[in-house]
């Protein structure tokens, strides 16, 4: 074993340790949700954003708040409402009195200026406000007037939306959905998990979250993730999965041809591969595998596969179509 190899092994082991610590800390507050937590962590490590979807009361907001606390990062929460204006989230220029008694315009930063932003019930805001968030999410900076204000790294936007109450909401447009690395479904907790939740939330003792990862450590982990190699067969598999999401793509099953209007964008395959790398690191491996790609396919593609009218009418779920694709595609290209 060479020195470089040993150094890499040490880096991976350190990554695993830090992630383990982070998971433990989160686990003090959040019961279960291993998949969701790993998904959110993958998004963070990939330097991107996640959309959490679930019914109210499942602990979405709490999860994000806990995550922020465990990382020691600045956290802001924006409750999206229909009357929320873009300036309300990105900030505004105000006339302020200087110490010398003069008056000057000063930019007051909005809630998007934080390391972790929770955009709660994002679909309740108007598209105009939703779009204001887009620049911040994609470009990691905000432009007000003629001045561009950078947002400190790492920067994560974790948006939530309620799938039930669609009245008076503004569903996110496809372009905006595509900005999200993952769309994570927050499931209902199991009976055992509910017992634990009750124990923790209905007694006087409440766990305190300590920051276990510094900002720098997080940036280092992000850099390590990008260095994880993905062999050609693995990349090829991810690409074939992406192609199969298109109605006329290679290897697309009949159900995709029938029920899908538009397949996933290249951001989808990027997300799959980065998430695969994250999973490899989580497991202490040095390269992403096809199994990692398969495990990442659902959260990376489910919000990028747009159903046709027939698919909507039939009540087809994108997860079902993605499963069909994964089952039909051979691991090796014929």
């Amino acid at each position, binding site marked *: *074993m060479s020195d470089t190899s040993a150094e890499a092994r040490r880096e991976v082991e350190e990554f695993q340790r830090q992630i383990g610590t982070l998971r433990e800390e989160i686990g003090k507050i959040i019961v279960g949700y291993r998949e969701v937590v790993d998904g959110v962590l993958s998004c963070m490590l990939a330097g991107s954003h996640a959309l959490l979807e679930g019914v109210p009361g499942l602990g979405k907001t709490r999860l994000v708040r806990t995550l922020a606390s465990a990382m020691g990062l600045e956290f802001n929460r924006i409750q999206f409402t229909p009357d929320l204006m873009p300036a309300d989230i990105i900030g505004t220029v105000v006339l302020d009195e200087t110490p010398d008694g003069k008056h000057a315009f000063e930019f007051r930063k909005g809630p998007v200026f934080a390391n972790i932003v929770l955009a709660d019930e994002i679909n309740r805001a108007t598209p105009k406000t939703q779009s204001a968030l887009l620049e911040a999410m994609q470009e990691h900076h905000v432009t007000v007037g003629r001045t561009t204000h950078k947002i400190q790294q790492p920067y994560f936007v974790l948006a939530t939306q309620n799938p039930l109450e669609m009245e008076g909401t503004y569903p996110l447009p496809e372009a905006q959905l595509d900005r999200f690395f993952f769309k994570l479904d927050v499931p209902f907790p199991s009976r055992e998990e509910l017992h634990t939740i009750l124990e923790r939330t209905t007694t006087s003792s409440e766990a305190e979250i300590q920051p276990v990862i510094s900002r720098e450590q997080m940036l280092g982990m992000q850099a390590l993730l990008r260095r994880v190699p993905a*062999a050609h067969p693995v990349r090829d598999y991810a690409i074939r999965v992406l192609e199969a999401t298109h109605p006329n793509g290679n290897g697309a099953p009949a159900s995709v041809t029938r029920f899908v209007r538009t397949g996933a964008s290249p951001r989808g395959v990027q997300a799959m591969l980065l998430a695969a790398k994250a999973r490899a690191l989580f497991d202490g491996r040095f*390269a992403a595998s096809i199994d990692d790609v398969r495990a990442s396919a659902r959260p990376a593609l489910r919000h990028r596969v747009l159903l046709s009218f027939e698919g909507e009418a039939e009540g087809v779920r994108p997860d079902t179509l993605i499963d069909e694709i994964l089952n039909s595609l051979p691991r*090796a*290209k014929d």
Partner: protein
Amino acid sequence: MRYRAALRRLSAVLPLPLGYACLALATLKLFGPRPGWERVVIIGGVITFATALVLTLVALVRKPPRWASALALDEHHGLFDRVTSALALLESRETQEPLARAAIDDGLSVAKGLNPRKAVPLQIPREFWVSAALLATLGGVVALELRSERVLPDPPSFEPLVLSNDDLELFSEAAKQLGDRSQDPEAAAAVRKFNAFIEDIAARRLDRASAFERLGELEAELAESAELDREARELGLEGLSRELQKSPLSKPAAAALEQKRLADAQQALKQLAERLQDKRRPPSRAELDRLRGAIESASKASSERLSALETRRRELQEEKKSLLNRKKESGKPDAEAAKLEENKRKLERLERDQARAEKAAKELSELDRELAKAAEDLRRQNPDAAEDIRRTAEELSKIEKNELSEQEKRKLLQRLREMKELMRQQGKADSERQRQMRRFGRKARGGQGEEGDQQQGQGRGSGKAGRTTQVEVVPVPRITQRTTPGGSGEAKTEGQAGGDQPGGKGDGAGKSAGKGHDANIAGDPTELKGETQAVSAAAVDTGEGSASAEVIHGAAEGGFVGKPYKDIYVDYQSVAEQSLEHDQIPPGYRFYVRRYFQLIRPRE
């Protein structure tokens, strides 16, 4: 990997030829073979099987997808593509990256304990069960025996052959007459069979087909028997004639025998017997020796011929056996077939000759015995030889009688043929005509019964027998005819209507013909210069007899019953038969003539 791919491909494509075989076989079983199908089915089968084979071979020789083996190894051992990644990264330019290096090292470290055989097991693909099911179906189709429902035609309804009572009576009477006259047991048996046949028709136990069949059998039997009789007799007599020719004493008898004049031959033999007993002009010793020799060889001729035929028959039987053995040994069905066929023909001919010779020997056995006895007596110079020859002549008379029985058979055969023709013609006639014929039959018997009445009607046609026409001779003035009185006058008791002998003299007519004759039988020449007397005769109807025309008319009106009609009928029929025999009458018309006379025949 290739074997697995080939097996999977085989499982995928095997249903094609198996399905085709099932379909083709089922179609053939359901609809049966059609012209040209066999070729199409075979070509289709060859194409489908060849396609499946080629596709399987292609899968076998085709290179498996890149990384497929490594991925299979990783998947089987749960390595999360470590080996694949290591191999792929080794090929790429990322080898120098620390994490890539670590991934390669990691892959190489786990590669040692891998088992490719377990990673790519040669297992039966899921698709194979489709082929197995099709194979089972094919077996089922092969074993399946379709029961096709064939609608059989309804059995033909029995329609009895119906002949009118009149015709049945005609044929049974004919058979009875032949039976009464016949002395020959064979002829009597034939007549009995014929009678049974008539009875079956009368009882309506036979339909047309079976009636024709029985008739054909009877006819063939009779024809063969009659022909055999004739041939046998001629054969025997021919041999006898040939041997008797050798002696001058028996030459006349031989000549008569050669010409089949049995009565003359009989007479010639009697004369020979007398000659042998003639003391005044006895035959010489040499003549007697030659006669003895001739008679001796004549007596042996039949038995010698019979033994020669038997020898030849045995030879042919042996030849047949040897040919059959050779055919069996060679194993070829065509081998010796021609020779066997020829042998069969020869045997048949010989058996017929043998039957004829046996019949001849049987028929002439008494004659041969008498001849042998005569030859022995002649050798001993015994005077009984003449008596033996006389008895030989008597045997010839018996043979003549046998010839008569043969004629009876021929008559019966003639009747059979008439009946056959009648049945054939009856088949052509429509039902209306048949009804007319039955009505005619009843009427011909003088019957009044309705159709279907089996009882014969009472005849009412009875012509007045002995109805005479007296001829009165009326002298005509100035014309005289000198007649010379004869020794006895010929009187006509029954004149012809209108009178045909004007010269007859009624007075003093005797009842019987006179005896002797006048010396001047021709009489004096007619003196033409003398006074002549014109004589005219006019018939007078006395009401005591009837003319032929009246008899026939009466028969037609009242039925063909009665003696006068019978006499007239016999006259007319004999003339008709002569015409049929000698004149050029087309065969088709002969039936109608004979049928006409059958219908108008006198009834009792």
